[in-house]
């Protein structure tokens, strides 16, 4: 007998030991395609939510070179606000995603006060002169500060902003490198910071440090991949532009011949016009591919977007010579993506299927749930299929098996899927058609009573 468990526990277990809850919140949030900022917010949330460590307020400082810079402040501004926030956060059934969303709103609301004051703060973290909080980064030690007003090691500007005599500084470390500092206090309840709190907050600091480290590495890697793709692209563009330019130049030269018959002159002009349109198309496609900015992924109902794609004149025209078979589950879950990019991804995949399928063939689209929290949109065609060597290169920019293709469709799809935490899978054999699966993170729609 086999029992199956979901990697993500859907509910926030309120009766679990707080250490477990804390680790659960943080690790589950890293599983989500939240941005670096959102994940840092999760860490601050875990440190301040009643079910986590339970500090009142948390401040995050990140190190850039020798400077420690204030980044984010999470926590209520007054006891009244604290009461309201903690009431919201302790609502039964509330999950970590809701908590993050709530706190994201809180951070942007307090942007003009707490976070702005904190963001103005920078500290020199040079070993000899550093004061708290930078001192904690230099020493790589957790510091519990009491009676801060009388402690010469505490930076006075920092003390003015925090306004508390007791606080805890946790350095964020990864591989012996200091990446930042988190400062925690109990400004609302005035509860003394206990040794157990310090232990748990220290553990949180280690996780946060390693998270920041790997997120920074990931960003660098994406940047390097982008640069490599740009280099490849520069070479490709040169070549892509050459064919139309040769045609334009050659036929223009002919136009200059005095004995060219008028019908040939008109033909040449038509060819030149077509080639210029092709150049325009190349430039458009490159621009589209280079448009790196995709909106922050959010959960939305994919139904209307899919309907718009399937009903578009382009799809109707292209599917005329073959059978387009669409089967979607009756009530689709919400998927995590940017709706515009989602539509483009589906359109791209359909285009590929139409191009690969000869007249009389079939393109089948299926939309279904896979386990909990995943929605699969698959497109199967009965076309020529993909050979094994080609399969390895499918998602490389500028790789194409099409006569007129630029090889940017699948890399675009992959980029979108990576950005929204989903993935794209392909199954195919030469001559046996192809099956592409887009796997999105999804959640069930809230039912209105």
């Amino acid at each position, binding site marked *: 007998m086999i029992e199956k468990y979901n990697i993500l526990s859907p509910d926030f277990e309120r009766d679990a030991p707080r250490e477990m809850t804390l680790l659960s919140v943080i690790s589950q949030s890293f599983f989500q395609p939240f941005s670096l900022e959102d994940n840092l917010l999760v860490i601050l949330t875990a440190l301040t939510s009643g079910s986590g460590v339970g500090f009142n307020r948390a401040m995050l400082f990140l190190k850039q070179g020798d400077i420690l810079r204030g980044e984010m402040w999470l926590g209520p501004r007054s006891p009244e606000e604290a009461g309201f926030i903690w009431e919201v956060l302790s609502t039964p059934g509330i999950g970590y995603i809701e908590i993050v969303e709530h706190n994201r709103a809180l951070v942007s609301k307090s942007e003009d006060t707490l976070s702005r004051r904190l963001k103005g703060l920078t500290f020199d973290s040079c070993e000899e002169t550093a004061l708290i909080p930078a001192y904690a980064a230099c020493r790589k030690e957790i510091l519990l500060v009491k009676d801060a007003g009388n402690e010469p090691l505490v930076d006075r500007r920092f003390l003015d902003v925090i306004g508390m005599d007791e606080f805890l500084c946790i350095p964020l470390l990864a591989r012996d490198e200091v990446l930042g500092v988190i400062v925690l206090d109990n400004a609302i309840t005035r509860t003394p910071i206990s040794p157990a709190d310090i232990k748990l907050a220290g553990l949180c600091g280690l996780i946060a440090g390693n998270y920041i480290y790997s997120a920074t590495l990931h960003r660098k890697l994406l940047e390097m991949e982008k640069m490599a793709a740009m280099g490849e692209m520069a*070479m490709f563009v040169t*070549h*892509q532009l*050459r*064919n139309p*330019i*040769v*045609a*334009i*130049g*050659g*036929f223009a*030269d*002919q136009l200059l011949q005095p004995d060219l018959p008028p019908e040939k002159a008109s033909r040449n002009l038509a*060819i030149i016009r*077509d*080639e210029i349109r092709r150049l325009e198309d190349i430039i458009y496609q490159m621009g589209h591919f280079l448009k790196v900015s995709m909106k922050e992924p959010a959960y939305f109902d994919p139904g209307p977007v899919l309907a718009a794609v399937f009903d578009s004149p382009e799809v109707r025209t292209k599917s005329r010579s073959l059978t387009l078979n669409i089967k979607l589950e009756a009530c689709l879950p919400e998927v995590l993506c940017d709706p515009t990019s989602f539509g483009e991804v589906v359109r791209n995949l359909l285009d590929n299927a139409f191009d690969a399928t000869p007249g009389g063939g079939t393109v089948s689209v299926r939309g279904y749930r896979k386990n909990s929290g995943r929605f699969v949109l698959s497109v199967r065609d009965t076309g020529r299929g993909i050979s094994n060597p080609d399969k390895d290169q499918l998602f490389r920019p500028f790789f194409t*098996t099409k*006569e007129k293709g630029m090889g940017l469709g699948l890399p675009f799809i992959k980029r979108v899927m990576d950005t929204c935490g989903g993935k794209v899978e392909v199954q195919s054999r030469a001559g046996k058609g192809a099956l592409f699966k887009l796997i999105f993170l999804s959640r069930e729609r809230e039912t209105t009573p």
Partner: protein
Amino acid sequence: MRKKILLVEDERALGLLYEEELGREGYDVTAVTDAEAALAALDKTAFDLIITDIRMPGKNGIELITQIMGLRKDIPIIINSAYQSYKEDFMTWAADAYVVKSASLDELKSKIKQLIGA
């Protein structure tokens, strides 16, 4: 007698341009758009020169050259590609000339003249 050139070029506009321009130079040009059609044409006609693109759907120009060499037909070959980088591929060294596509056909015309005369 007009010298016969087999042109393998998948871009129809370019095929047409070369056909006309080389025709004006006094050559008899047969233009095809892929390697298979080129091999079929080679079976039927004794060409004096082959001009081939490299990137084409189906078999590419380098595969075509390799196959022609296997046929032991002693026909000079000019590679005409938009890609300069294929020059570094030793498989292209078997060709008699490598001309990067250009809006001016002067270099191509002069290579043809060198190889098979006017």
